[in-house]
């Protein structure tokens, strides 16, 4: 468990800002809740009144107020536009979030996803009426197999973590098929792993055994061998890892796992570093989820939806869950029931995140073999450019070694400044940047993980670097005011998260009458 806490409420009063009657500040606008501005009888949708008819609801009709305010269209548009203006976005600026791959979301993707032939199709229509949808899923599946060098792919997981669960379930099914489900109940996980890894393993009854990384930031086959035993089902390894480093002993690790009768799950969150440069299948991976919302540009949408298809090696292919598309003969088919096959079951209703498939395929077709490889190269080059440009000021935990698509710093360089990673991150906001990933991975103190992606121009990278240099030098020079109360100019100042957790208010409630 994470025991690295940090301050969660604002500590100092600040100089008062100039007030206004509305609370607005020119284009920086406040906006009330719909429950405060809407009315139960207002509506932005005109709906007919049906002619009287005999209800078939039985005694189940809903009586009483529900509590759902309505707004007419102009009021609703204004409400949501005003809300939107308080959000940072990748369209507005560089988003250096390590492990999130905040690349540009092409608008062609949105146009294609909205073709009626894709978005206005029901998953349970007769198969003969959805051949184009099956073709799209099949085409994307083949592209993913080509890029990864694997044998089969489960397209149905709804997000990365869901994909991890799918991959681990397939491994558990494979182990059960050998009669070893009672004995092989341990999963090896490095301490640097994303929390979803141990959480996914634990959900299906595995216990987690830590495997340490070396001082060089990567896991050695030797330390894997030391942790291996007949009780081990699998290892879950992120490659490149969460410190932004390629696990250079990965083939040795895969061999060790396979020799011990265990499986290799690869967390594909950082796939953007190596598309077209190497294939997980060639490295010995048995299962890997791919985050379509990271590597393949489907939009993050303020937190979701994602999509997490899982590619499988030969060893695991037959355990992949339903449903999956089958080709052969004239038409495409859909296998929806495990029947006599070894498919381990079903991850969700229907067939997967079709809307994200369309977007991802548009991205892959647009880039093609040359573009995908170039994108990975540019992503890795951009991260190393940032590393080389900041390395004299900020401390890197694993020395000056080359990173992949993201660069990791820790907070040792801030030691004598009295400032924390959090302070530094919040000061970036005033400069018009979203902070990088902070305090992850947990293996490093005060982690700062920066992933610029291939979507940034050199001018954008240079400005980002110069800004971070300016902030870093300011921090080292002891200019605390720039940091301790930051952000000063955002729509909100630092929030009292302690209060939010101690006195949770998780919905609006009508205030009691005075």
């Amino acid at each position, binding site marked *: 468990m994470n025991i690295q806490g940090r301050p969660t409420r604002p500590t100092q009063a600040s100089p008062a800002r100039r007030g206004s009657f509305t609370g607005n500040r020119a284009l920086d606008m406040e906006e009330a809740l719909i429950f405060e501005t809407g009315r*139960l009888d207002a509506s932005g949708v005109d709906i007919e009144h049906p002619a009287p008819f005999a209800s078939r609801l039985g005694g189940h009709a809903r009586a009483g107020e529900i509590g759902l305010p309505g707004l007419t269209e102009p009021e609703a548009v204004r409400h949501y536009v005003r809300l939107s203006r308080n959000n940072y976005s990748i369209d507005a600026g560089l988003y250096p979030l390590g492990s999130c791959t905040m690349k540009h979301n092409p608008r062609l993707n949105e146009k294609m996803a909205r073709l009626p032939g894709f978005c206005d199709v029901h998953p349970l229509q007769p198969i003969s009426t959805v051949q184009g949808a099956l073709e799209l899923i099949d085409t994307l599946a083949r592209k993913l197999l080509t890029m990864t060098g694997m044998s089969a792919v489960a397209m149905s997981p709804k997000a990365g973590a869901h994909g991890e669960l799918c991959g681990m379930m397939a491994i558990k099914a494979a182990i059960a098929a050998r009669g070893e489900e009672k004995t092989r109940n341990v999963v090896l996980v490095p301490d640097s792993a994303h929390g979803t890894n141990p959480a996914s393993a634990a959900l299906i009854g595995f216990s987690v055994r830590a495997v340490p990384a070396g001082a060089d930031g990567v896991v050695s086959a030797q330390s894997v061998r030391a942790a291996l035993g007949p009780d081990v089902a699998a290892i879950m390894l992120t490659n490149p890892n969460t410190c932004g480093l390629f696990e250079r002993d990965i083939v040795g690790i895969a061999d060790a796992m396979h020799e011990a009768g265990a499986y290799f799950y690869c967390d594909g969150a950082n796939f953007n570093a190596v598309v077209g440069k190497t294939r997980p299948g060639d490295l010995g991976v048995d299962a890997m989820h791919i985050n379509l919302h990271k590597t393949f540009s489907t939009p993050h949408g303020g937190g979701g939806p994602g999509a997490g298809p899982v590619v499988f090696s030969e060893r695991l292919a037959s355990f992949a869950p339903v449903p999956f598309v089958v080709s052969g003969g004239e038409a495409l088919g859909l296998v929806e029931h495990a029947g006599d096959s070894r498919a381990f079951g079903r991850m969700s209703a229907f067939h997967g995140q*079709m809307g994200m498939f369309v977007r991802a395929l548009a991205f892959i077709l647009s880039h093609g073999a040359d573009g995908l490889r170039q994108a990975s190269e540019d992503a890795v080059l951009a991260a190393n450019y940032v590393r080389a440009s900041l390395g004299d000021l900020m401390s890197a935990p694993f020395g000056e070694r080359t990173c992949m698509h993201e660069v990791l710093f820790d907070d040792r360089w801030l030691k004598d400044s009295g400032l924390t990673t959090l302070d530094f991150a919040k000061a970036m906001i005033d400069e018009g940047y979203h902070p990088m990933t902070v305090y992850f991975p947990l293996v490093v103190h005060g982690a700062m993980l920066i992933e610029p992606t291939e979507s940034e*121009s050199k001018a954008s990278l240079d400005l980002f670097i110069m800004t971070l240099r300016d902030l870093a030098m300011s921090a080292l020079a002891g200019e605390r005011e720039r940091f301790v109360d930051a952000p000063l100019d955002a729509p909100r100042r630092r929030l009292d998260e302690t209060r939010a957790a101690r006195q949770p208010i998780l919905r609006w409630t009508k205030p009691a009458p005075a």
Partner: protein
Amino acid sequence: MRYLPLDASDRALMLARVGAADIDALFSDIPADKRLSALLDMPGSMSELEVERALTTMAARNVAAGSVPFFLGAGAYRHHIPASVDHLIQRSEFLTSYTPYQPEIAQGTLQALFEFQTQVAALTGMEVANASMYDGSTACAEAMLMAHRLTRRKKAVLSGGLHPQYSDVAATLAEMAGDEIVRMSLDVRASEDIGAEIDDSTSCVIVQTPDFFGNLRDLAPIAAAAHAKGALLVAVFTEAVSLGAVRSPGEMGADIVVGEGQSIGNALNFGGPYLGLFAAHLKHVRQMPGRLAGETLDADGRRSFVLTLSTREQHIRREKATSNICTNSGLCALAFSIHLTLLGEAGLRRLARVNHAHAVDLAERLGAIGGVSMLNETFFNEFTIRTPRNARALVEDLASRGVIGGLPVSRLAPDAGLDDLLVVAATELNSAADRAAYAAALAQCL
């Protein structure tokens, strides 16, 4: 390439700063014999116009629901979405923003989630709702796990009225987790005695209403039976619009309510992305999976919103988390919330009424055809019919006549011996002409 801003001279300057001879020097940690020289078996880059051409051709090979009289539901429902919804969710700040981990620059997302959570709680009749799950089926499985944690028991009883794929998902998870599942046989007439299945080792009963066959179920006696044995009632819905007409599960005593939110604000999209809704009692909130947006103040004392109670989640608790979930269905939740705001209470009630009216009319028309039996006593916008023909063949026949007639039950439950049953839905989009066309086509098929 139109998405890659760096040019050759940029790259050269950057490599020089890095001190690398060439780009491959940065990939030297990849074992030499595992490096690709190129991505083979994949064509080169394509212009927008070429990609459009390829994908439009694929899309044209599908029959869009709006192009024919369309009566298919079974867990995903075709409704009218006001024009401004899709326009608003495509605003850059909503579409291309990340999870609101830096609340000072994410109040748009956070306030929208707080409003969404309130709407879902109100709709379901519960005290608190989370910021969404992937979809109804995974929300249902997570509710089962939450009930296990709360009761410290491991046996879930699944009603025979639960959507078969929801049951499949719950069963897969239970089997993998080493938990027990009692799966009642498909219950076409809502006549099962689920109370008889509850004992002292039951953690929860999972009951859907309106159920898979369209029947409306009274959850109150089931809740009482569960509580008498120390078990919980998990209520499920797949058609969110029904909550504008039908008593909420919360009112009927449900402990956890989960459902599919797709039918408000979100297109059919061939099955995803959809929207899992999850609501519970406040006293159980620490065992609830998923993100939660909460209210607080900032340093200037202004009302603000922030993700809270995060210690339940995987990024802190890791293997002891309430779930492994990371992503929610944010943009779909926003679309739901915008649509529901545009409808308002009065609009939702009227929309629900129109849905019911159209279904009642369709049921009358179909029931009047010789050989067709309408099996439901009660329903909202979906019901089940039996005909003399195999339902799968019937649906193909109807499709060839240009009508998408519903779901043959055997598609989702091939071994249940219900091959002659068809589940039919009608929404506000099914005009009188559509309904007449269906009745005429069905009569021809029989």
